[in-house]
């Protein structure tokens, strides 16, 4: 299964980016094979408004079923939730260790957003 993790770099050893909409990259990892795909979020990072919503839409497009990040705002959460993507917050460490943590069942999925909107 595919999970999306916000990242400061382009590979599995990069640190998790705690931001979602304004994360540098979003890495979509296959939990079985560890094959991954990188979404370059840099354009979105400087977006005037709706960065979280756009990033959420991109995550849905890649077929990820789970998003793991630091903070996910309410609008992004609503977008992901509508597409049936589950969200886990408060991730730290590298992308690789986050995948391990996920496989070990260390994340709980939130029912709501944990960061206030910026508008």
């Amino acid at each position: 299964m595919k999970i999306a993790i916000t990242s400061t770099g382009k590979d599995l050893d990069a640190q998790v980016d705690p931001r979602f909409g304004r994360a540098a990259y979003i890495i979509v990892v296959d939990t079985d094979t560890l094959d991954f795909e990188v979404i370059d979020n840099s354009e979105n990072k400087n977006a005037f408004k709706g960065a979280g919503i756009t990033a959420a839409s991109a995550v849905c497009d890649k077929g990820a079923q789970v998003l793991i990040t630091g903070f996910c705002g309410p609008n992004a959460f609503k977008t992901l939730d509508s597409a049936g993507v589950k969200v886990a917050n408060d991730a730290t460490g590298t992308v690789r260790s986050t995948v391990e943590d996920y496989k070990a069942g260390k994340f709980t999925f939130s029912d709501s957003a944990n960061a206030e909107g910026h508008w």
Partner: protein
Amino acid sequence: MIISIASGKGGTGKTTVATNLCASLDADLMLLDCDVEEPNAHLFLNPNITEEKKVNAPVPKVDLSLCTRCKKCMEICRYGAIAVAGKAVVTFPELCHSCGGCMVVCPEKAITETDRFIGTVETGSLGLPEGASFGQGLLDIGQVMAPPVIKQVRQLEGQKKLTIIDAPPGTSCPVIAAMKGTDFVLLVTEPTPFGLHDLTLAVEAVKLLDIPCGLVINRAGLGNDGVNNYAQKENIPILLEIPFDKRIASAYSKGELLVRALPEYKEIFKGLYTSIEALVNRKGAA
């Protein structure tokens, strides 16, 4: 004639000037409170509200059976108010500016409009001056789209010879919506560095709209003469200086009109109106 009363920031005495100007004139007039996030002119004027009208703004509604998830709607929306998420299309009515862009670009005609309640417009009459009318807009709690409500309030314009508009504070879209197309902008400021900073922004906006303006300095004598120097440099007439006076502050805090607490101000506000009239006529003649 339509006079809008504005200030770069809140708390400068904009409402004091609007309500007292209104209460000092014998003219055939109406006061429109366009400070829709926090209308407070009614606290001083005690209008008799006789009518209430709902204001709606159109927001998109997507028919998923027609939608091909092409994302064109999402790409055109500047406000992040519509998004394609997997098989779903999500809308954020509270972010939508009702521009209609998504509807226009949708190649499948999958988007229709639906109404969202955003506020109310109330109308009524005033006892002072007799026969004057009153209107105010009230943005519903949690809504951010003030301009459509302001535009609805301004639909009332023209029923009387003189319309006085109490504009919202600040210099963004709502203020522009309240000042646009008026004959004169009366800017109310304080003689402090903060007041001056916000005043310069407000003056820029007024210049863009090409409307003649004049200045009221409230709590004069409290700060420095930065505002006076600026007015001179920019060639903006100072039409009135209201000194800092404890009796004025106390009347305000009790919701009492200044012209009631200190009747000598009635003539002063009449004089203010005469100066405005002269400036508007001069512009008309030029």
